[in-house]
């Protein structure tokens, strides 16, 4: 059952450019994939490590800005991408080192502050980042000589990265390190007593999470050929967190569903009303009140409840 569903959804993804014969909607589909990568990166930390971060837009932005800055100052695509990944890794390590001085609520507060620093640099350090005007780049990269200028080839390129990230996260969470990461989330004291280095495991998870976020940032730069401080804002971090939590944390599929819902909602709501932030805020409150475990597990729970109610009724009649 699960395998069939997986095969069907993969097939749908692969055929999406044929099914969606409109570059506007295809671009939105690409954006869903990029958001899903970002959300999956955040999920590594929020879901599997149990550490809520609200500074990940900063890491997303560092990836995008590094590449944009290098490309705009004339460096090659490969060097720009490689350095963007490198700088994101280094920044994630610094973020992780500082934020892991605390756990729980303190950790969360520090990530907010760090994310705001990144935003402040992008917004105010005008000679470096162009301030509110952002940075534009001339063209998307052309790996192996394949042009990604069109909507369809870029969708496939994003899809490949998306699948690679999903695969990597799946392997990671099943690996001994991934299992011990969940251990540090549920029973940090016991893990320490068992001889695990809880700090190091969390540190690694944070850096990996930052890496995936940076990759998403890089892809987002390629898609829009533009980056501005807006991508680092507190609101952007909050949207990513909403994707993770609405989909259901610590599941492989949750962040993907969450990303699809949030991006789709954003486009639909913005088309009718200007009040996206009001809706976003209301969704946050509603999810906490009605589906605290997220939409995917929450729907499964409701579905089971309905079904068991149905079978009971049958048994009675």
């Amino acid at each position, binding site marked *: 059952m699960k395998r069939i569903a997986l095969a069907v959804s993969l097939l749908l993804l692969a055929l999406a450019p044929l099914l969606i014969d409109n570059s506007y909607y295809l671009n939105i589909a690409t954006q869903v994939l990029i958001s899903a990568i970002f959300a999956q990166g955040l999920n590594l930390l929020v879901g599997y490590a149990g550490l809520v971060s609200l500074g990940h837009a900063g890491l997303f932005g560092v990836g995008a800005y590094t590449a944009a800055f290098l490309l705009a100052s004339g460096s090659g695509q490969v060097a720009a991408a490689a350095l963007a990944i490198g700088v994101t890794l280094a920044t994630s390590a610094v973020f992780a080192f*500082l934020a892991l001085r605390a756990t729980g*609520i303190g950790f969360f507060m520090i990530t907010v502050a760090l994310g705001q620093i990144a935003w*402040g640099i992008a917004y105010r350090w005008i000679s470096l980042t162009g301030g509110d005007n952002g940075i534009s780049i001339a063209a998307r990269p052309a790996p192996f000589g394949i042009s990604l200028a069109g909507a369809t080839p870029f969708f496939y390129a994003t899809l490949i990265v998306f699948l690679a990230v999903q695969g990597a996260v799946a392997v990671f969470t099943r690996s001994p390190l991934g299992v011990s990461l969940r251990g540090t989330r549920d029973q940090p004291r016991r893990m320490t007593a068992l001889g695990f280095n809880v700090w190091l495991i969390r540190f690694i998870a944070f850096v990996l999470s930052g890496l995936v976020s940076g990759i998403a940032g890089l892809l987002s730069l390629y898609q829009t050929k533009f980056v501005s401080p807006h991508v680092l804002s507190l609101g952007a971090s909050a949207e990513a*967190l909403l994707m993770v939590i609405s989909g259901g944390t610590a599941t492989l599929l949750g962040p993907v569903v969450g990303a699809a819902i949030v991006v789709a909602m954003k486009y639909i709501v913005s088309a009718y009303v200007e009040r996206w932030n*009001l809706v976003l805020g209301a969704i946050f409150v509603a999810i906490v009140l009605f589906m605290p475990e997220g939409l995917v597990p929450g729907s499964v729970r409701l579905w089971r409840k309905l079904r068991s109610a149905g079978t009971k009724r049958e048994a009675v009649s």
Partner: protein
Amino acid sequence: MNLWVLLAINSIAMGGLLFLLSAGFSLIFGLMKIPNLTHGAFFMLGAYLGISFIRLGAPFWLAAILAALTMAAIGGIIERLLLRRLANQHQAQVLVTLGLSFMIADLCLMFWGGDPLAIQAPEALRVTVPMLGVRFPLYRLAAVLVAVLAFAILWLMIDRTRLGAMIRAGVDDPAMARVVGIRVSRLFTIIFCLGAGLAGFGGVMGGPILSVYPGLDTDMLPLALIVVILGGSGSLVGALVGSFIVGFLYNFGQAMFPEIAYVILFLPMLIVLVVRPQGLFGKAAAS
């Protein structure tokens, strides 16, 4: 020379405003363990309410008090209806307070529009006084005075009164406090109302200095965060000292290194995190 004096006095005034904002944030964070991300929005909504009260004809101080009372009531409703159910669920608290702050910010934009609005300082304080060789607006001195007054009242309340003793007991050991007959949940509501009211009052006080505009909430929230991380959560003295440090960094950073002012603002926070993670005046680490 004059420029430095002026900057220093402005910094102190800014510190006073920040104390009004972050005292409540620090108490809510330190005592109730709630990361209240709505606090910046409380500050902004208080300022906008103050504008409306003034438009209705209220004098400045009355408008500030009315705004504070309204914010205290709103804070009380939020605490009773939403946060009460989410005790000790940090992730849920983060989501709800963040969601509320988005909603408040968007509603403010809807009702008061996107243009910056100014609040006129009360007439008696609009004059400038000669001080240390510069002409200094009296209103800023009044802001500092109000902040120090607020600090003194809060400190006396928590350290010297029966209510304060009950609050401290409820924080140290809620279960035991309940056993001896203290209604801890009511104490938490009082703290939350107090924090929201102070933020609203600070918003109106800040109006003549900062003006009121969409985005004021997200400008102020990080400052409150820095103050609390610097000073240590739940510590009033920490909030006061942290506020003045941030006030100075903010004004001098903007004047001397405008491009990286924001980074300078955060540097001492990073140093404190590395050297003394519980904050300058915080108690030893509680996980």
